[in-house]
């Protein structure tokens, strides 16, 4: 009846045949840009030559105000302030545009905008996902690393190595180990009764697939159950790739923030002594040793004693890292592991002892004393990381972890260039270097394509997540390859690439449509105009806060929880206070099962998998959100106050509101309509309502 494996019947043509057909696996060819009279930017020469062949002309340069607003959003995710607009309009000297480009590339907000872009790919979230969806208090350390890496323009090759294999570098820095948090963004299932091996395998699969999508632009995940139907990836290839990540485990490191370490070290001896004293007095060392023996026995021979079976189950699901610590001999446990297990023991021993014994031991009192003692020790921050180990990996038949097949060694895709491993057993560092090899035709193309997508609304390859046969062909293969080599030849510098793109005339041209373009190139593949792109969820919120003057511009730090309605499924949400409420959107806690409703409404990420392209939906719930959400009401009120207290008459004040929201002055008809509207409203609310009108315009939520 049901035939889940019916597709296995599809037989692959030989992998070599497929590889020969697939453009993205062919070597990158750098061609010099065609010469076009009067055009200097290589990007423009490629694009213009193509347009000329099609008999089309590019669009004129967009107005200065449109260009500055576009550039501000694209480089920092924020709109320009009225002062920034004025400064640009006043700068009439040559090089004015380049000065804006350089200013914005230097802005610390650049790292926020492009960090968020990377966090989409990294499936970043602040919680585990699944039922428990437990908060991850230290996940932000990885986010912070990304923002910093972007701001200091960490070359993309090093950026890649640090994230995939920072821990395997010789003498890695704390930062390089924190970077491995990339693959700690997988979901964690803590549901009772799960088979931990099943979900460990799920995590390894996620790491494998994410790596394939992010760096190779290939849907390697399709080869999890059977050879890839379309691309030259065998199931064996898949599990060789899988083996790199199977040779890793989750870990946690002490990653003190500046100023944390001194007080902590100072207080520790006294803390240790007091803790030991409390534990010994309550006979913990002896009882815990016995408890561990019993649980280990239940883990080895389940089904004999139900209460201990349950105790083991509880430990696996309720205690972070509990099973691994239990299985580590006591003398080899780290200080942190020791503390986790002992704290768990004290709080949970009562589950396996009698009522009388419980009352006799009074471990609830001890647990409270230990917690109080903990509170006296100045904490040091932590970070989630990966650590290396070796596991025997096998092909999983039909992707089923219960059906192991042949053993496999870590290895790369047979259809691509060979890997030069440093040691006998290839590891993640070898994988990262293989990815960055000059012989790899994919990574630089995939990366450049995604960056281009941010600037023009779509990549040369519109399926930016899939460079395989099921993906689309590039619209401008020569330009794509030229940019890919330019990127690598300039030390994998993202800022260099950004500047190259935004300095082009193609980037600066107007986005308005023209009848001949609508007829000839309705999808704007030839780029005879720029694109109107609806802003990201975060940018919409950030814009409203910027226009109103409420935005807290501090860069970095832990996640914040601004006011939100209690939506279905929302977990505990302790509201942030003061300026924290006005931090940029990328700092808002992302809980996988209950994301911030505003972001859900505007196609924000949910952290379930690498997100290569955001949706840009257009729904009535978005309208209700912008019209009635208290955050936007507050922003409109604040802008109203700001504008109404500015000098000048109504016309000047309206101009200021327009500038704050749209980065331009109103046209005469617009000023006239808004004046009439303002006058028709009760005086007390006229400004707030007028500000709200501006914040609900399509133009307000669009990068023109």
């Amino acid at each position, binding site marked *: 009846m*049901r035939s889940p494996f019916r597709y296995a019947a599809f037989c692959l043509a030989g992998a070599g045949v497929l590889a020969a057909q697939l453009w993205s696996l062919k070597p990158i060819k750098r061609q010099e840009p065609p010469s076009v009279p009067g055009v200097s930017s290589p990007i423009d020469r490629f694009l213009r030559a193509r347009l000329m062949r099609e008999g089309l002309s590019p669009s004129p340069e967009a107005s200065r105000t449109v260009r500055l607003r576009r550039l501000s959003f694209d480089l920092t995710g924020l709109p320009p302030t009225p002062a920034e607009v004025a400064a640009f309009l006043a700068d009439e000297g040559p090089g004015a545009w380049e000065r804006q480009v350089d200013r914005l590339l230097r802005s610390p907000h650049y790292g926020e905008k492009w960090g968020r872009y990377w966090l989409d790919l990294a499936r970043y979230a602040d919680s585990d996902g699944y039922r428990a969806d437990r908060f991850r208090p230290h996940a932000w350390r990885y986010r912070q690393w990304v923002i910093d890496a972007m701001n200091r323009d960490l070359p993309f090759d090093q950026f890649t190595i640090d994230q995939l294999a920072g821990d395997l570098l010789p003498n890695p820095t704390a930062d390089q180990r924190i970077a491995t948090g990339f693959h700690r963004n997988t979901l964690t299932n803590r549901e009772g009764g799960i088979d931990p091996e099943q979900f460990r395998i799920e995590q390894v699969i996620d790491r494998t697939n994410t790596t394939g999508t992010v760096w190779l632009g290939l849907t390697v995940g399709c080869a999890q159950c059977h050879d890839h139907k379309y691309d030259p990836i065998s199931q064996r290839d898949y599990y060789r790739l899988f083996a790199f990540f199977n040779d890793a485990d989750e870990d946690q490191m002490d990653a003190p923030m500046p100023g944390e370490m001194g007080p902590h070290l100072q207080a520790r001896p006294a803390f240790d002594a007091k803790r030991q004293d409390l534990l010994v007095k309550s006979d913990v060392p002896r009882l815990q040793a016995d408890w561990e023996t019993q649980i280990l026995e239940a883990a080895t021979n389940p089904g004999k004693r139900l209460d201990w079976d349950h105790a083991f189950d509880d430990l696996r699901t309720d205690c972070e890292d509990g099973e691994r610590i239990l299985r580590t001999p006591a003398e080899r446990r780290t200080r942190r592991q020791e503390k986790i297990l002992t704290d768990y023991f004290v709080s949970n021993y009562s589950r396996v002892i009698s009522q009388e014994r419980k009352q006799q031991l009074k471990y609830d009192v001890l647990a409270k004393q230990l917690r109080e003692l903990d509170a006296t020790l100045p904490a040091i921050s932590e970070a989630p990381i990966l650590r290396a180990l070796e596991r025997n990996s096998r092909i999983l038949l039909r992707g089923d972890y219960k059906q192991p097949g042949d053993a496999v060694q870590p290895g790369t895709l047979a259809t691509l260039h060979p890997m030069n491993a440093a040691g006998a057993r290839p590891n993640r560092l070898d994988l990262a270097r293989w990815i960055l090899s000059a012989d790899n035709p994919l990574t630089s193309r995939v990366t450049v394509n995604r960056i281009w997508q941010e600037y023009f609304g779509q990549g040369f390859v519109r399926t930016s997540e899939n460079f395989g046969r099921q993906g689309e062909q590039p619209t401008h293969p020569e330009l794509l390859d030229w940019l890919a080599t330019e990127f690598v030849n300039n030390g994998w510098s993202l800022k260099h690439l950004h500047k190259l793109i935004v300095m082009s005339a193609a980037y600066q041209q107007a986005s308005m449509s023209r009848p001949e373009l609508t007829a000839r190139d309705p999808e704007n593949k030839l780029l005879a105009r720029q694109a109107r792109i609806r802003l990201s969820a975060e940018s919409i919120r950030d814009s409203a806060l910027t226009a109103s003057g409420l935005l807290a511009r501090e860069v970095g730090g832990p996640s914040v929880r601004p006011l939100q309605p209690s939506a279905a*499924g929302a977990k505990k949400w302790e509201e942030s206070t003061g300026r924290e409420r006005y931090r940029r959107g990328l700092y808002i806690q992302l809980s996988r099962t209950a994301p911030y409703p505003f972001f859900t409404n505007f196609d924000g990420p949910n952290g379930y998998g690498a997100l290569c392209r955001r949706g840009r939906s257009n729904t009535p719930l978005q309208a209700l959100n912008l019209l009635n959400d208290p955050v936007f009401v507050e922003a409109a009120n604040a802008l109203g106050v700001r504008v109404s207290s500015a000098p000048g008459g109504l016309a000047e004040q309206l101009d200021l509101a327009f500038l704050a929201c749209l980065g331009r002055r109103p046209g005469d008809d617009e000023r006239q309509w808004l004046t009439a509207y303002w006058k028709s409203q009760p005086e007390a609310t006229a400004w707030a309502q007028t500000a709200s009108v501006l914040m609900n315009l399509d133009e307000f939520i669009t990068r023109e």
Partner: protein
Amino acid sequence: MINRRQFLRTASGFGSFALADLLAADTNPLAPKKPHFPATAKSVIFLFMPGGPSQIDLFDPKPELRKWHGKPLPASATKDLKLAFIQPNANAVASPRQFARHGQSGAEVSDLLPHIAKQADDLCFVRALHTDAFNHDPGELMLMTGAMQFGRPSMGAWATYGLGSEAKDLPGFVVLSSGTGPSAGANNWSNGFLPSTHQGTPFRGSGESILYLSNPDGVTRQMQRERLDVIRRLNEKHLRETGDAEIEARIASYELAFRMQMAAPDLLDLSREPKHLLDSYGVNHEPTHQYGLHCLLARRMVERGVRFVLLSHGSWDDHNDLDKSLDKNCRITDQPAAALIADLKQRGLLDSTLVIFGGEFGRTPMTQQQRPDINYGRDHHPNCYSMWLAGGGIRAGVTVGKTDEFGLAGIEDRIHVNDLQATILHTLGFDHTRLTFPFSGRNFRLTDVAGEVASKLLRRPPV
């Protein structure tokens, strides 16, 4: 999208707004669409019971278990079992419930569901349903999205993607939830990779039923209209300048939002429902009030053209104290669910509305406790479990499928949850293999790579 833009521009030159009004339906991604073949159901109400209700105590009596009560089942019957918490040699526990035959069809329903039992002749009981997952999250996703991985579109999203919605002034896919809620949360009504217009809109249990439906304090409806008028005027100007049809869709969204602000309160206003009807749903009585309200709202939504209502109550995850907590959940849901069937039928809506009652899996004949008589509960059981369906072209007054004497496995007419999904799409007029969406390099569908229409459930099986 492209076609719409092209049409708009070539037909009128861009920005001719009179035409835009005519095209309002076209700019609305939820405009009604025709399915592959004539549908038997226009709307779906899924009475979702997350956690896994115990079929052995509700719909599928197993008198044989009395002989094994307190003892392990024969090893031959349990040797291949893989369960979440218990070992296959756990002790069996017989149901303490009384089962009787009901209606002309003689359907067997336990004494915990007296109201549903009275509707037996309108229902189709499915007994040998099975799924791939034995834990809640993957199980719920399997049932609602067709696959165990996160990120796939849910059934309701597929329904509005395929059919659009008849509701001009309300969302096409609405979610109502009571109890602790399903464990996989919003993934049960996610649009996945479909456009976000298709995501379920959760009406909230208390306070505002739709987020931000009410105007801010001090803003009257008149003021809201004035605000929308000037927004529209400015947007229209920008539409003329840019020729971008997205602006036109934005204008349409704002107008629907404004209509929803009117229509939703009307939907929620029960003042014109007669008292006897409210009583039949158990509205204003405990413990049925909230669930009864939700069932009644579901009917009112279907009347207004909403395509898919996901009405969740739970959890039914009774690992212990099953007697007590199953009784509690049944007292909450039995009367309202039965009233919904009767009410739909009385209004002639049952023929065009498919109602489904069930969870992500069933429960084991064995108990999780050592002794069957104290606080016993049952483990998750994916291999066979029960649901009932009604209306929308589903056969009435039949029981389909048979399970073995212990309730361990289906032995006749087994139906996989992907088959159930194929069947649901069939009632909506779709060939489930052809309702697809390209994503990440392949065409996805609700039934993933499986599913066959369960003809035995259909009044008119496909030829």
